[in-house]
């Protein structure tokens, strides 16, 4: 039923400027086993799958991710393979099983207006901006082949600009000779579809990239996928003629002329048999359910809540004033927060003896109870502050100190 919807809407979803061909909709029924009696029954492929290149007209990372997800969930790729090309305004995209607090400096990003998004495929963290081209290769599960796609890109770069590139052992594209990456790759496999997407750095702001992805040692322990940092370079640094627009069409043409099942180049004539380029306007009208997907992708629960559980530990030097007795110096307050699904599960305070008042640091329980069940964010700290401020005043300075520390924990992460 989703498929029927797709077929009906796909028919009218073309907003190509010059390309308003009536598109024959891909058939709903899988035709892997041909019913034609001419060939041997159990025929392999009735014909090659046709290819299209979709170019997204949106620059919003969430919309594009939602579009990618929509195609993955709703489209039938059996006879129709698709390459989706998209660009975004500055954003950092983390992998499905990553921890955003670990990977990026969340507070820094919010200052600069850089979005954080979580994608559905695995892998590491990447930085996107308008100088970066994203490619997604959609195929049915059986025809998923990452290497072929990367070879295709290599070929395109050589063909157009004579740029020689290699595929590293980790299946990233690097410039020959040097070891600087120009692309990062990730994939998602499911039933019945699969996709492989990668980035291509054309003219990305490298300073911002470094800044956004700079990892500080943060005392976080987790099993989330950790990104492997590697040096990158822009294609425009290698060859100044490379621009995103040109790259878009180069890769598109290369995609259309490649055999759908192998990386074989079939030549220019092959392109005639394909469906060509299409501009896609990702709105809910053309892609019903897109808004819902986008809403989910923007939600805090997805972006931050989906992190695998982790705990963060910080220690703070207790200021001398707060220590009751003179003899104790250099005491440390250690705070460990366990976070699961983005919610604080548990808080552990190692309170040094000096910080305790005569009757014990009564705020301890407060700290724990008020933080538990809150989102691991600034809000939690505010709530904590409120809770502690309701205590009696002699405790106040100590409480403030503790609150401050907690705030630091949350913020610095």
């Amino acid at each position, binding site marked *: 039923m989703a498929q029927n919807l797709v077929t009906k809407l796909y028919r009218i979803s073309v907003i190509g400027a010059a390309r308003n061909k009536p598109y024959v909709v891909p058939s709903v029924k*899988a035709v892997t086993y041909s019913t034609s*009696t001419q060939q041997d*029954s159990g025929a392999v492929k009735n014909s090659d799958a046709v290819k299209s290149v979709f170019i997204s007209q949106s620059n919003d990372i969430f919309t594009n991710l939602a579009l990618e997800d929509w195609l993955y969930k709703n489209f039938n790729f*059996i006879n129709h393979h698709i390459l989706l090309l998209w660009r975004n305004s500055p954003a950092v995209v983390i992998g*499905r099983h990553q921890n955003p607090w670990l990977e990026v400096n969340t507070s820094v990003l919010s200052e600069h207006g850089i979005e954080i998004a979580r994608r559905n495929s695995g892998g590491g963290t990447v930085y996107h901006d308008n100088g970066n081209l994203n490619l997604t290769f959609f195929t049915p599960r059986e025809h998923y082949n990452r*290497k072929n796609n990367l070879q295709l890109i290599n070929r395109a770069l050589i063909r157009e600009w004579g740029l020689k590139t290699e595929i590293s052992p980790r299946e990233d594209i690097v410039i020959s000779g040097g070891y600087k990456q120009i692309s990062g790759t990730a994939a998602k496999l499911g039933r019945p579809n699969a996709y492989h997407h990668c980035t291509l750095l054309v003219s990305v702001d490298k300073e911002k990239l470094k800044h956004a992805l700079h990892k500080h040692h943060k005392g976080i322990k987790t*099993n989330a996928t950790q990104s492997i940092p590697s040096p990158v370079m822009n294609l425009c640094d290698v060859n100044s003629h490379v621009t995103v627009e040109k790259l878009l069409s180069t890769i598109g043409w290369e995609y259309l002329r490649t055999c759908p099942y192998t990386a074989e180049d079939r030549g220019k004539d092959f392109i005639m048999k394909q469906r060509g380029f299409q501009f896609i306007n990702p709105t809910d009208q053309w892609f019903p359910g897109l808004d819902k997907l986008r809403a989910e992708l923007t939600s805090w629960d997805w972006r931050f809540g989906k992190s695998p559980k982790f705990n963060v530990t910080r220690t703070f030097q207790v200021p001398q004033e707060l220590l009751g007795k003179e003899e104790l110096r250099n005491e440390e307050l250690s705070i460990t927060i366990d976070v699961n699904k983005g919610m604080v599960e548990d808080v552990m305070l190692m309170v040094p003896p000096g910080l305790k008042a005569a009757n014990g640091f009564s705020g301890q329980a407060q700290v724990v109870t008020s933080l538990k069940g809150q989102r691991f964010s600034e809000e939690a700290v505010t709530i904590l502050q409120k809770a502690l401020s309701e205590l009696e005043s002699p405790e106040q300075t100590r409480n403030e100190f503790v609150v401050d520390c907690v705030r630091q924990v949350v913020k610095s992460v």
Partner: protein
Amino acid sequence: MAAFAKRGSRILRQHVLNTYCAKGKLKSIGARQMCLNYKSSWCLKENKTSWQHKRGLFHSSAVQANKIVPYNLTDIGEGINEVSIKEWFIKVGDKVSQFDNICEVQSDKASVTITSRYDGIIRKVYYDIDDIASVGKPLVDVEVEDVSGEEETSLESRGKSARVTDENEDHFLADKALATPAVRRIALENNIKLSSINGSGKGGRILKEDVLEYLQNMSPVSDAGSALCDKRPASGRAHDYTEPIQGFKKAMAKSMTDSWKIPQFVYSDEIFAMKLTELLSHMKEIASSRGIKLTYMPFFIKAASKALENFPVLNVNVDESCENLTFRRSHNIGVAMDTLYGLVVPNIKNVQALSLLEVAMELNRLQELGKKGALRQGDLTGGTFSLSNIGAIGGTYTKPLILPSQVAIGALGKIQVVPRYDQSGNLIKAEVICVSWTADHRVIDGATLARFSNTWKKYIENPFLLLFDTAL
């Protein structure tokens, strides 16, 4: 048994079970099914029941519960042996259907969603989040319910995506037909290559219905076929013996039931076959020198095709609701054959374009394949008209049943030597063949059939006309 054929095989199984497994120790329908249809490879070693299953015999000892099947982590592709479990979508005790998401694993940079192969209840989960799972080792244990296996899928094991080249692709798709284990079993029992069946399920999956349809197309049409089907010597056994109707017989049962819905009438006639016998005796030698075995049948087939040229309404396919007639240009004439597995009706395509000898050649080919049980689906489907030479065994007049979707069929009796009067009134020794035509009375009227029969008769009585390409 006919009642069961009408109401479905499941009722039949129940009946048989109640008869034979009445000790009541088989607790679940799933287990009973196991006894009936499935070979012991399905059964887990953990299951303490020591039954050996031979087709046709029943075991009546106890089986503990629904079977628990370990669902192995299938090959992800790209030479990956280990993945880490990132998320579970189910837990022990959850009910899953096929294609439900089970878990998300990550390998390198690929995030893979593993979907369920079975319908059932999760009984055991082998890994926790962040554990490393190995390909080929069990991921979860699923208690499979009493489903007849139709909704199971074996897709996940087809993960050869990364390494296929074009030719491997052919190989891959031809060998690894998508079908559930239950479907494979049925195909295996009937010696059908899955690659020769069109899958109508999702992703080209072959469903049980596809296999049965395939079998049905191989089903016999003549109701005299029951004589042919009975291969067992009558005095073989000492006791009463019950056997489930499976495979070809089941397809025949279904096809006959469907055929019964067609209002049919029979028109019979006598043909003088003297000239035909004479011609055949001359041509037999010539044909065999060319390696072709020539019999009466090619003549009958070719004559039928010639007659169909004048009466194209007999060469149609009608849909089930009898609302549309598809006039077929090619005369794909089916010939009822007794093969290894029972009666099938493969057809010779485009008889109108073939010469007599070519028809004979094609017939030989089909007979050879039939003997081995190696007829392909292409041979068995697409028929537009059928003939049955029951006379090769015996009989005179008969009432053949039409193959559903066709509108006519002919059955030929044996050649009898009887006294007849010729045109000048002399008593002659005549060789007579009886032919009986059955037609769909919703579409064909008596006059058309009669005229068709007369045309056919002229070709048989003057067989030299078949050697020319002239219309009468």
